[in-house]
């Protein structure tokens, strides 16, 4: 079976900093992949090479079996939903929540064309599925962090993507919003049969049914395999360069960094 995402020996560099160094990764359709690691490990860059926002210094990225290049990237992106890390939005931005969700359709609609009834239906469906109908006419700059995150997920889902890239979707959210976003990720992943990549800063927030985990450090993948195997005190202590304690509960694991002393 061909891989839906196939990354081969990819190196990415931003000025003098190497963000990814000779990284390879193959992912099959339908997988829910969590990516974790310390700050600056290259997690976001790994996501962005999949949708072509990250520029390769060397190596090859294939998505849907097609090699990503500048000529075909806009076409490929139409089937790749992307929710970047927290975006700074001007509170007075003259765009409503519904319009932001509709932006997700714009690539598929194409230039010089208007949204048709099907586009509007798709947007209405994702608005209901994400549960943001009550926010529809609010200006985008007037939302809380959790609400904004849901709107961005709705916008990415409006693309009707086959691949969903989520960059720290629970960052800076309160406990209730974190829970709500995590449940939403799992729901849409299974319901829409997506291949989902989710960068998680806090391992305690890993989606419950996340089958595969990638741990990164110093621009390299240092572990990839089953999540259960990745959640080991030894592996995590080595990745994060500090002693880590795992507390297993019925609802998952709680990961705590211990002081070196």
């Amino acid at each position, binding site marked *: 079976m061909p891989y839906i995402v196939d990354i081969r020996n990819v190196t990415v560099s931003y000025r003098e900093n190497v963000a990814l160094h000779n990284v390879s990764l193959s992912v099959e359709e339908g997988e829910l992949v969590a990516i974790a690691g310390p700050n600056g490990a290259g997690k976001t860059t790994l996501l962005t090479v999949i949708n072509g926002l990250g520029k390769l210094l060397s190596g090859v990225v294939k998505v849907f079996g097609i090699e990503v290049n500048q000529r075909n990237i806009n*076409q490929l992106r139409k089937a790749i939903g992307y929710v970047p890390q927290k975006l700074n939005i001007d509170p007075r931005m003259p765009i409503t929540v519904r319009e932001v969700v509709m932006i997700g359709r714009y690539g598929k609609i194409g230039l010089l064309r208007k949204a048709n009834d099907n586009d509007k239906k798709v947007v209405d469906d994702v608005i209901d599925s994400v549960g943001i109908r009550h926010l529809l006419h609010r200006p985008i700059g007037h939302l809380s962090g959790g609400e904004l995150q849901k709107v961005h997920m709705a916008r990415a889902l409006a693309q009707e993507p086959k691949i969903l890239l989520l960059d720290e979707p629970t960052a800076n959210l309160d406990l209730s919003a974190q829970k709500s976003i995590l449940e939403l990720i799992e729901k849409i992943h299974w319901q829409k049969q997506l291949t989902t990549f989710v960068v998680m800063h806090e391992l305690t927030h890993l989606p419950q049914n996340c089958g595969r985990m990638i741990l990164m450090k110093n621009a390299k993948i240092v572990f990839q395999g089953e999540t259960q195997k990745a959640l080991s005190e030894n592996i995590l202590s080595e990745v994060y360069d500090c002693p880590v304690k795992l507390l297993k509960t019925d609802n998952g694991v709680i990961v705590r960094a211990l002081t070196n002393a």
Partner: protein
Amino acid sequence: MLEILHYKFMQYAILASILGGVSCSIIGVFVVTMEIPFLGVTMAHAAFAGGIFGLLLGINPLISAFMLCLLSSLLIGPIADKAEFNPDTSIGIIFSIMMGVAFLGLAMIPGPKTEALSLIWGSILTISKIDIILMTIVCSITILLVVLFFKEIQAVIFHREVAASVGIPERWIYYGLLFLSGAIVTTNLNTVGGLLIFSLLINPAAAAYQLTYNLRTMFILSGCFGVLSCFLGLFFSYIFNVPSGAVIIITSSVIFALTLLLSPKRKVKKVGQINESNG
């Protein structure tokens, strides 16, 4: 009073005020929402530098101003993207280059520099039929492009990275808008002048920004404020016999001040309303 409207120069001035007001204030929406206010002043300096070199080389200053302005607009986007600068830094670099080139050219012009300086101040009362034709073309193209590519422009204004990630040719749209800004500034040099055009780009759009959360409405309001600024400015300039460019800018600033006072975006809920909404 109305007999002044029979004069050709006044008819041209009114037409120019409508065309200039609409085109500057429409592109101003992009400038204000993308937070690149110095784009206008940079384009104005590029046009000024181009105009001066046109005078030096004996070619039509409007054509040379147009060329340098468009060249600058083509450089700003790629410089910012390639060097990973904030666009304002890239605009600042082009601005300083154009200012240097303009002053160099100014020093090289022998004798009185009246013609060159008129590019800075402009005069809506002395524009020609050719200017009107050019302004009509640029204004029509601006409106047409905004209507045809509204959804792409909306996505780019919202967030460039998000626009790119959904498969929109975001760079073409962004660079195209910068290019259009250059064309608009150049064609409006003769109305309010190279320096004052900065205000006509910013004030009507900033005024519209105070009043609405809808981008379409913002474009329409901005266009109306632009025309109103030029029209009233022209009227007061005639009544009080003062330079038209300066009065146009003062009028646009007064409109901005009024919208700031009346802005629903500045309203804060009163305690009673908060208690009511909390049940």
